[in-house]
């Protein structure tokens, strides 16, 4: 079955390496992702904070375009975009007046029936079954899988079995030959959309996450959300000021880690785009087991 793809704005900008590594892994496994033609921004926190109709209409336009393209499933790797598209879909599917209102705004029909896949579902359903034959390296190091908010909650959207202690990324990292640690900040919030307007808050919240991961012996943090990655990586200077002792632990996307284990080059996976060097993790490849 065809797999539609909604990159969202981050994956074309500050989270570019997420899409680069996703495509590199998909290509390696022979999977084709079909971008939704002329997709638009999901509206993110700004739309749902200021205008409810807009927060449904923006994702609804993208869903309508996907329907027009005949896509029955869409992969949305960004956690925030996933949250917005899935929330809008829930409203469209459960309310005929909402569907009518949105069709009227958009001047095209919208049903909202396509299946929206999280990156975890995509990996489980499409990469897991074939991954074995492509994994050539072991990422021998201890890693903290950080899920954040919108890939964990709310449960009715994310469909996670254990939203307070998810294991989806831990399974991927184990497959890649790393050792996921048990830690306390797996699903805590990094400060998300307050990154620019209240950097002080983001530094405080993110510092707690980095601190816990480091104190339990993690050598990398693995994420699946471009906001989490940006806050933990780009804001490291501010984060380090909040910690007793600063840390240079790298923050990778799950697809970058998986790509490394498949023998893809650091360059192809965008591992050179980070603010905190990922060199240490890259050099873990093939290291003695931990």
């Amino acid at each position, binding site marked *: 079955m065809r797999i539609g793809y909604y990159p969202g704005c981050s994956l074309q900008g500050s989270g570019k390496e997420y899409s680069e590594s996703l495509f590199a892994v998909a290509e390696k496994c022979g999977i084709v992702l079909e971008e939704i033609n002329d997709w*638009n921004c999901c509206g993110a*926190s*700004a739309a749902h904070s200021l205008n*409810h109709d*807009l927060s449904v209409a*923006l994702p609804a336009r993208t869903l309508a375009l996907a329907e027009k393209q005949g896509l029955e499933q869409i992969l949305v790797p960004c956690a925030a975009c996933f949250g917005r598209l899935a929330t809008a879909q829930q*409203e469209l599917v459960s309310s005929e007046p909402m569907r009518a209102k949105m069709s009227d705004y958009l001047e095209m029909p919208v049903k909202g029936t396509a299946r929206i896949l999280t990156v975890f579902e995509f990996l489980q359903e499409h990469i897991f079954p074939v991954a074995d034959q492509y994994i050539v390296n072991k990422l021998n190091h201890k890693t903290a899988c950080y899920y954040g908010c919108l890939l964990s909650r709310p449960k009715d959207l994310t469909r996670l079995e254990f939203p307070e202690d998810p294991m989806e990324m831990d399974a991927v990292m184990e497959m890649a030959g790393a050792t996921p640690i048990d830690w306390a900040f797996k699903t805590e919030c990094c400060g998300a959309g307050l990154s620019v*307007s209240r950097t002080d808050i983001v530094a405080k919240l993110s510092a707690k996450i980095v601190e816990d991961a480091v104190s339990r012996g993690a050598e990398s943090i693995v994420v699946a959300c471009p906001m989490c990655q940006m806050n933990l990586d780009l804001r490291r200077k501010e984060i380090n000021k909040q910690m007793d002792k600063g840390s240079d632990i790298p923050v990778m996307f799950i697809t970058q880690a998986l790509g490394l284990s498949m023998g893809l080059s650091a360059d192809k996976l965008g591992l050179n785009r980070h603010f905190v060097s990922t060199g240490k993790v890259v050099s873990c490849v093939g290291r003695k087991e931990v």
Partner: protein
Amino acid sequence: MENTELHTGDKSLKQLVEKSVGVEIQTCYQCGKCTAGCPLNEEMDLMPNQILRMLQAEYPGYENEILTSTSIWLCLACDTCYSRCPQEVKLPHIMDFLRQESVRQKLVNPKAKNILRFHRAFLDEVERNGKLNELGLTIDYKLRSMDLFQDLQNAPSMLLKGKLGLIPHRVQNPDEIKKLFKKING
């Protein structure tokens, strides 16, 4: 949220919340899990469970107190409260509604002005291009907040790392998005 058309009339804030968000405020039995799990409880002037209690009690002046609070702007919509609520009270949706009502009644707390400026700069950028361009957003926000220095040091390295595009991404016909915004904003 089920209905966003506002007919304030003589309805109280509690009634408006219930109608717009589709919740029953009285179902909250004040267990306090929302506040205990809130990542921003230390920063808030009103605790999440306190806002629900005020909506329940409806004592004189409660509406202003809620709508002028910083809490409604600090809420990150992380959904921790809703996920742990034994009564499934949709607090993040209530917070969305309270923010919108606070703007409508011009009661936004001065300490939350930069958060609002950022949201507005974000939506204006989406209205212009249909997609968000981080460089455009940052410049626009800097001009609105006059907080010109913060983040400036990151821009050159973001450009070098290919994380900031100089040429904005756009939908094929930006007028289509402008029209959509116009229809919704009336």
